[in-house]
């Protein structure tokens, strides 16, 4: 309990209040059911940890998906993209090892030349890490608007447990001054430790993971610590929130951590997309937040907590504003993308995800 005395001092609140000016999701069209993976690897079509996962098409990658999510965010923001001062993409599947994804996204959406555009990597929390940096850039008045994206075409080794969930998708957020926001960011807190639960070494195609070690000391400890300390410092409990969204590597983990933190199932239902799109890694908690913003009412308080292996969690308290009602119709909703669905078989999946050696 000693450390909790200090928590109030380490919760981040920029000196200039900030908020979400625009947001946008992207989920590709194709879906691979869990039964199709088990048919190949276990000999019988038994259900997996999620019903199905979203799969990027042949011509899609983190850059193209980020461009569409960013265009949706710009449309909702209603600002000239020339006003952006950062275009930050967080991912563990950047198409290039060396050449920033952010440069191509910035050019495509019409961002100016005076921007920051380095890429972010922190497993599944690379996007929220960029979100925190954007808060800092705007909160310090170095910029009026900064774009933070979490997007992945997650890699899963054929036959591995992760293959059932490793999915494609994500979301983009434009951070700006709170008075123009459609949702205000009230406070933020991050919890980071050195945790070898999941990793991918250089030049390796697929990640490795610590099996059951990825649960209790990794996912649960980090999310619980970040979320509970943030709520405590703000004098809030689960009851003070209308919605909560947590990193969603499957369906079970977010449901369990929500319960540990005192949330009821109905508070997490609308942001829990993993059962129908899988785990979109750096995009997972962020795309869940977009689904909530699509339906939230002004004044609704939202808790979002990401988790990235390695490991860390970023927790945010967000409050929906009046402007949300006017501007959210300016782009496709997250459910519009979920409804656009074409089922594929395992063979098509291996082709789309470049798992067939062509030479």
């Amino acid at each position, binding site marked *: 309990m000693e450390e909790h005395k200090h928590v109030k001092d380490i919760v981040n609140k920029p000196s200039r209040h900030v908020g979400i000016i625009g947001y946008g999701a992207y989920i590709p069209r194709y879906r691979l059911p869990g039964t199709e993976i088990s048919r190949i690897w276990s000999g019988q079509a038994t259900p997996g940890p999620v019903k199905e996962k979203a799969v990027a098409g042949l*011509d899609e*990658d983190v850059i*193209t998906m980020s*461009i569409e999510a960013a265009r949706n965010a710009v449309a909702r923001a209603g600002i000239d993209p020339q006003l952006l001062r950062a275009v930050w993409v967080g991912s563990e599947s950047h198409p290039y090892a060396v050449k920033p994804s952010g440069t191509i996204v910035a*050019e*495509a*959406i019409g961002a100016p030349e005076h921007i920051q555009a380095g890429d972010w990597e922190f497993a599944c929390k690379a996007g929220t890490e960029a979100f925190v940096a954007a808060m800092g850039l705007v909160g310090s008045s170095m910029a009026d608007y900064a774009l933070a994206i979490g997007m992945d075409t997650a890699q899963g080794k054929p036959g591995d447990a992760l293959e059932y969930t490793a999915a494609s998708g994500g979301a983009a957020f434009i951070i700006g001054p709170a008075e123009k926001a459609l949702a205000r960011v009230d406070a933020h807190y991050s919890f980071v430790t050195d945790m070898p639960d999941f990793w991918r070494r250089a030049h390796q195609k697929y990640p490795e993971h610590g099996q059951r070690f990825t649960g209790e000391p990794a996912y649960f400890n980090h999310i619980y610590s970040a979320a509970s300390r943030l709520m405590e410092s703000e004098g809030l409990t689960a009851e003070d929130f209308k919605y909560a969204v947590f990193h969603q590597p499957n369906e079970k983990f977010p449901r369990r951590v929500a319960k540990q933190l005192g949330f009821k199932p109905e508070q997490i239902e609308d942001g829990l997309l993993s059962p129908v799109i899988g785990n979109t890694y750096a995009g997972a908690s962020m795309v869940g937040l977009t689904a909530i913003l699509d339906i939230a009412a002004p004044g609704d308080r939202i808790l979002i907590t990401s988790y990235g292996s390695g490991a860390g969690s970023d927790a945010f308290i967000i409050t929906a504003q009046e402007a949300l009602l006017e501007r959210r119709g300016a782009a*496709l909703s997250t459910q519009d993308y979920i409804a656009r669905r*074409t089922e594929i078989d395992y063979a098509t999946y291996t082709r789309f995800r470049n798992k067939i050696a062509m030479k």
Partner: protein
Amino acid sequence: MEVPRHWRLKKQRYALVGEVCPHCEAKIFPPRDVCPECGGEAKTAYAFSGKGEVYSFTRMGNAPAGFEEQAPYTVALIKLQEGPIVTAQLTDLGNQEVQIGMPVEMVTRKLRSDDGEKGILVYGYKFRPAMAA
């Protein structure tokens, strides 16, 4: 490898940026600095909406060099809302059948890699069945 050419064409390819004629208001794509309607000089950049409809299409079974891994795919002539007709691949068709007059919208996609696994990735416009109402 054609790196300088890809760099030069990025604006029109990524975001369908063409030109508008300052004399007769004609929208021009691809940009060519001279208005095809009135012959006047036209260098003002103009970003197209990306909305259009299928004017005609064909299915490519035998793809040209650099596009083999994508075959079979559909190439279409798209009549843009603003007037010009552009040639582009259709994408995200799923099981949807293509029809003349079908409303489509521009998306930026990976066109190909210039020089296999080690070359630069070339991004540019394709069109998909319109999602927005």
